[in-house]
């Protein structure tokens, strides 16, 4: 097991990269703790697979170094890095049995037979595949095959890191739950450094302690799932994390209040460091839809008339899409709440983020605590 340091790492697929746009992966400096669970999240073409290939040793970066526990491994081959990887499509050795598949990496490394047998039977038990130990691996279901490819990494107790490249792509939704849980258990049990590449926010957020969000070759934010949800540092993160994504609306920042649609919304934080045209970011979860009477009763000045355009009932909540002051906006309505006929939208001021040129403006101080929710 090892901590992984990315030291001024950058990569371009061109021989002589000129400007910034030539880089598939723009410069990244970061340290991944030993035993941590990390996710690389972003849309296709964002550079996440490039980064993974650099870590696994398939790709030599144009600039910078990769260090495992402080040792430079940039020039080392995949074999020498002592890592394991689970691919998008299950890679198994068709002609071998399940047990032989698990024994394969050990036998290749000259581990003696009795040790191999005991580790393989342990691993079969861990993966709940003991009954199928002597079955040919090719006849198994996709999720079982993925477990085997993971097992081939875990069975070598000393791997530096386990890399996952969208491992749940071909798994049915029900099995996804089980496999994800299994993965988490194994992480707790073995404590390997794990790096998980995906475009699926649910997978990334539920798996990782820290999520690296990438966009057009750039790391736009590294943070815990809460940080990504509560305070996205870039409007892209706001949009990409959360389903539906964050509502981004044009507004004017004036002292510590936002001017939006003839309303002034007082913000809890102190924003004297910025002013002018900004973007108001509010998650659909924090847009309440109230009836006119409720709004009047609450005596809240910052309510905006909401014109409903569509309602999607997805069971445990409803997504209400509509318009406020000519801008489209989404709100989330809990299962047990009714939708008023002529609603007004109320933004929770504590949950408003302010962006300028797509970047988050942090308040210099908070007058009253926001942040917590539940």
């Amino acid at each position, binding site marked *: 097991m090892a901590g992984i340091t990315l030291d001024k790492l950058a990569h371009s697929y061109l021989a002589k990269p000129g400007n910034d746009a030539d880089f598939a992966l723009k410069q990244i400096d970061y340290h991944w703790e030993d035993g941590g669970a990390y996710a690389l999240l972003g849309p296709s*073409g964002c550079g996440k697979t490039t980064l993974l290939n650099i870590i696994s040793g398939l790709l030599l970066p144009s600039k910078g170094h990769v260090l495992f526990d402080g040792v430079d491994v940039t020039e080392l081959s995949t074999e020498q890095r002592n890592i394991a990887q689970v691919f998008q499509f299950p890679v198994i050795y068709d002609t071998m049995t399940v047990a032989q598949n698990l024994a394969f990496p050990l036998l290749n490394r000259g581990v003696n037979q009795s040790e191999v047998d005991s580790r393989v039977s342990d691993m079969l038990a861990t993966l709940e595949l003991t009954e199928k130990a002597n079955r040919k691996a090719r006849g198994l279901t996709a999720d079982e095959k993925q477990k085997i490819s993971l097992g081939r990494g875990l069975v070598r107790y000393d791997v530096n890191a386990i890399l996952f490249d969208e491992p749940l792509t071909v798994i049915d939704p029900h099995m996804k739950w089980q496999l994800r*849980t299994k993965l988490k*258990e194994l992480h*707790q049990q073995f404590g390997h450094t794990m790096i998980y590449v995906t475009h699926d926010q649910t997978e990334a957020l539920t798996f990782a302690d820290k999520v690296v969000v990438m966009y057009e070759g750039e790391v736009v934010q590294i943070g815990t799932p809460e940080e990504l949800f509560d305070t996205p540092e870039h409007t892209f993160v706001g949009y990409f994390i959360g389903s*539906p994504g964050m509502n981004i609306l044009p507004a004017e920042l004036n002292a510590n209040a936002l001017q939006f649609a003839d309303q002034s919304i007082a913000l809890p934080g102190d924003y004297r460091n910025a002013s002018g045209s900004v973007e108001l970011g509010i998650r659909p979860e924090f847009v309440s839809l109230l009836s006119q009477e*409720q709004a009047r009763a609450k005596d809240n000045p910052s309510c905006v008339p909401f014109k409903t355009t569509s309602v999607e009932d997805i069971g445990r909540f409803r997504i209400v899409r509509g318009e406020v002051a000519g801008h489209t906006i989404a709100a989330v309505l809990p299962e047990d709440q*009714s939708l008023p006929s002529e609603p007004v939208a109320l933004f929770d001021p504590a949950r408003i983020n302010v962006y300028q040129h797509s970047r988050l403006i942090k308040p210099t101080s908070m007058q009253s605590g926001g942040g917590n929710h*539940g």
Partner: protein
Amino acid sequence: MLELESVTKRVGAVAHINDVTIRMERGSLNVLLGPTLSGKTSLMRLMAGLDKPTSGDIKFDGASVLGQSVRKRNVAMVYQQFINYPAFTVYDNIASPMRLAGIDKKTIDKRVRETAELLKLSEFLERTPLNLSGGQQQRTAIARALVKDAELVLLDEPLANLDYKLREELREELPRLFAETGAVFVYATTEPHEALLLGGQTATLSEGCLTQFGATIDVYNKPNNLVTAQTFADPPLNCITVIAQGNQLQKDDFSFGAINESVADGNYTLAVRPHHVALSADERYNVAVDVTVGTSEITGSETFIHVKALNEQWVVLTHGVHRFQSGDKLTVYLNPDYFYLFNDSKDLVKAPQLQRLAN
């Protein structure tokens, strides 16, 4: 209107489709929901006329289509893989079905541009599909299906190979795009969440059998039987077998409280959706269950807690961020109003009573 009457498809001794009767109206969006190998693709192939049923009849607008060739049927299909003519530009790809139909150039041009606009492909019309992203390629394939003016449009997991966020956007657009054309739309997916977002009607499939067909949200809220309920659950449904006596539900010496409905005494399967398990008690959530935490997953706004409750593997889905360690003891609370009960033959006897309150 597409009607399938007692359609069965056997391959060898295996029934891939078993006695399916279903009726789909024009202008409707019909979701086929079920796990891999539940028969979604087999059913679509039968509907398209690519396969012939072993028994049963398939009718379109009242007339049997079994004798007709696929080419005459005016069916459009979109697959999971992005299938376009690689040598054609996007424009020619979209225009191709209309050219085959012998439509005049001016109309074709107009339709291609309209459809491209609708699917946000206008700026790529002169490119070939291989120079496009996956999402754009699939939108091209969808555009081709749209302009064909088909009576029956079959979409077989069309978004499965796309990025999460792209899926979200297309899912929102698709029902709107299709509602206007007046064709019968059939959309296969493995994901309950996708079915809910698409709306329309949902047919749940399990091992080649149609387990239920109805308005999507109704099937979700009131599944006829346990199989449907489990097919239509993501995260999975929490189940436990109980004994009902009077209106009291009991598992061994643990009481799940009283339900308002009266059910016959006997054995039942009690099912609760994960978001109907609360971490704190109130007047509605008043049945306390002691559980042991396995793993917990945090999405940033919600937490999934995998727990062991009365020896069953359950999932709790709760708002906000909650951190638990594996092995932690916890008390969760249930609301008997939100119980599902399935009888011995796995049929629904009680569904949750939804109450919608003004906040």
